[in-house]
């Protein structure tokens, strides 16, 4: 199309070059596909968020309050399934990764643009199938689909499983595309060690998506076969082994945890360097620790299964390997801290989210070590301690980074500035609300309250009440964010090319970027964080 014959008109960009909804739905432009992912993921986030508020509302008091036990189990299932498969896994890679990875490496697009668009359609088909089960007999298996419960339960579990399988295919296509882009489409001078750390993180994530997701696919297909044909592989009544299901499931789902958190780490590396105006400390160590985390994450899945009936030997091996994942994570934390040292730190809203990330991820990290410890995990396994831990990592970590990254790149994506004051208010609400919601859950877990409980003993009441109030604060925070976004889109001031004074490639092109990203083919001569 008009790609190669671009006139350097400063008012023409990827948003207004082509017009009409059809030009979006058939667009091969990675930036537009990123925005399409953004709209869909944010919509699903709304669904998942409403389910979360419902869960907390029911748990405000013991006993049945606003819904029945069965309804609660459905809320819990949809909250988990939507947030994992439709929000956090595609979240940062498919939105921010799609938009910025090609620009970061100086490419005009991802390696396979048609595949990229296909992955969005596949994702939408899977997601809408998942949502459609809401109008059928609702699923109540929990997002983990543990057998034999998931075989026996009525409800549209088969359809949900197939939906997750389809979304997995989309995830594979995205990952495949990013790997090929990083390997093959770097511009002249862009060596692997001049790539921004965000790219390293997305690259590591892509490897995980590619290698882990197929196993989830076959596991879910086997589960569907189990429900339809009664094959008996995972059904103990037919001689199968339900613990094997857990092995297969976590072979994907543990790396998936890193699919969720690695991109967030990448975003935070960008934010900390940009808002400290300082080169990142230990670039190589951070880059390799991303790859290291990705590699080791395949060897640790059994730490979800210490009390599952897995053998003691396997538990010990998995605990040992899990401890090793802690090391690259610690390196990242200390290197970010060292980057702050003698920096020129500005507290604009993206940076607030980055610092908030460090705070929450620290807590998520150390509680992760506690859960990796065999004897302690026996007590904590499947209690609210685990719930609090992974929310600190996935919400406190990933969602904070997503919000920070979103504010950071908003001017680039839309060419408009947002209301900085209100953005800071959203941070205050989300950060405080988050801690009020989830910190009490650590204590509840230590006291022994199991997860996925519709009802609880009176001793747990006051902490549950605090937690529910916190969830309202988070809700308000996100409502304000929504206002900030809409307000910025409608009334925002025109954004300059580089509002933060950052050094990576995307800030060297106009806001918003032109259709082909660069007016002149870029040639890179230095690293991504040359603040001298």
């Amino acid at each position, binding site marked *: 199309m008009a790609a190669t014959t671009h006139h350097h008109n400063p008012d023409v960009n990827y948003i207004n070059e082509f017009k009409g909804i059809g030009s979006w739905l058939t667009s091969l432009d990675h930036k537009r596909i990123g925005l399409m992912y953004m709209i869909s993921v944010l919509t699903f986030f709304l669904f998942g968020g409403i389910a979360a508020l419902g869960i907390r509302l029911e748990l405000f008091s013991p006993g049945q309050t606003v819904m029945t036990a069965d309804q609660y189990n459905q809320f819990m299932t949809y909250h988990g399934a939507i947030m994992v498969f439709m929000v956090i896994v595609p979240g940062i890679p498919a939105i921010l990764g799609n938009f910025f990875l090609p620009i970061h490496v100086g490419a005009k697009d991802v390696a396979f643009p048609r595949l990229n668009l296909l992955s969005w359609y596949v994702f939408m088909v899977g997601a809408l199938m998942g949502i459609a089960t809401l109008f059928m007999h609702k699923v109540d298996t929990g997002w983990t689909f543990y057998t034999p419960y998931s075989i026996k339960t009525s409800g549209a579990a088969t359809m949900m499983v197939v939906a997750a399988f389809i979304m997995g295919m989309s995830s594979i296509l995205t990952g495949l595309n990013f790997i090929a882009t990083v*390997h*093959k489409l770097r511009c002249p001078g862009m060596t692997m060690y001049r790539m921004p750390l965000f790219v390293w993180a997305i690259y590591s994530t892509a490897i995980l998506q590619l*290698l882990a997701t197929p*196993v989830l696919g076959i596991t879910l297909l086997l589960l569907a076969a189990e429900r339809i044909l009664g094959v008996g592989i995972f059904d103990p009544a037919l001689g199968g*082994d339900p*613990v*094997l299901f857990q*092995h*297969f499931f976590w*072979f994907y789902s543990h790396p998936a945890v890193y699919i969720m958190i690695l991109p967030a780490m990448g975003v935070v590396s960008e934010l900390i360097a940009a808002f400290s105006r300082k080169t990142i400390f230990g670039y190589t160590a951070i880059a390799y620790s991303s790859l290291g985390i990705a590699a080791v994450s*395949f*060897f640790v*899945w*059994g730490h979800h*299964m210490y009390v599952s*009936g*897995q*053998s*003691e*030997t*396997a538990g010990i*091996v*998995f605990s040992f390997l899990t401890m090793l994942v802690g090391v690259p994570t610690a390196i990242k934390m200390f290197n970010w801290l060292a980057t702050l040292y003698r920096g020129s730190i500005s507290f604009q809203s993206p940076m607030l989210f980055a610092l908030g990330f460090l705070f929450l991820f620290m807590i998520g990290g150390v509680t992760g070590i506690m859960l990796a410890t065999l004897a302690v995990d026996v007590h904590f396994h499947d209690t609210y301690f685990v719930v609090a831990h992974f929310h600190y990592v996935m919400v406190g970590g990933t969602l904070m980074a997503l919000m920070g990254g979103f504010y950071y790149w908003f001017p680039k994506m839309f060419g408009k500035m947002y209301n900085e004051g209100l953005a800071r208010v959203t941070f205050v609400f989300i950060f405080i609300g988050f801690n009020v919601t989830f910190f009490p859950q650590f204590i509840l877990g230590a006291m022994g309250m199991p997860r996925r409980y519709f009802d609880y003993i009176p001793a747990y009441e006051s902490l549950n009440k605090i937690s529910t109030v916190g969830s309202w604060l988070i809700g308000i925070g996100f409502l304000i964010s929504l206002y900030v976004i809409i307000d910025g889109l409608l009334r925002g001031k025109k954004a300059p090319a580089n509002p933060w004074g950052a050094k990576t490639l995307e800030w060297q092109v106009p806001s918003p970027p032109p259709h082909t990203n660069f007016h002149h083919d870029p040639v890179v001569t230095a690293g991504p964080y040359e603040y001298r």
Partner: protein
Amino acid sequence: MNEPKDVHHIVDYKILLKSGAALFALTFLTMIAFWNHHHLGAFAAPIAFLIAGVKAAIVMMFFMGLKYDSTMNRIIFGLGFFFLAVLMAFSALDIWTRVPVLGTI
């Protein structure tokens, strides 16, 4: 990334023919081993899979052209098998080392 010098490597016709012939021969060998599996005993299965492994290697190297491809592509394809082995090894580790709890009954 270590690219091959000739981008469009053409696998020689004779090599393809030899590979095909070798695959046919190995398939017959598999059957010969199968007919004699009473003599082979416990080795029957490993031998069958060893032959299958050789056949797979021939397909990968000559038909799929991995022998003439870039190192990166070889690493990528190898990674698939490596992580498959990881899945197998750890799942088996658990199931093989389970201790029955009903010793006394």
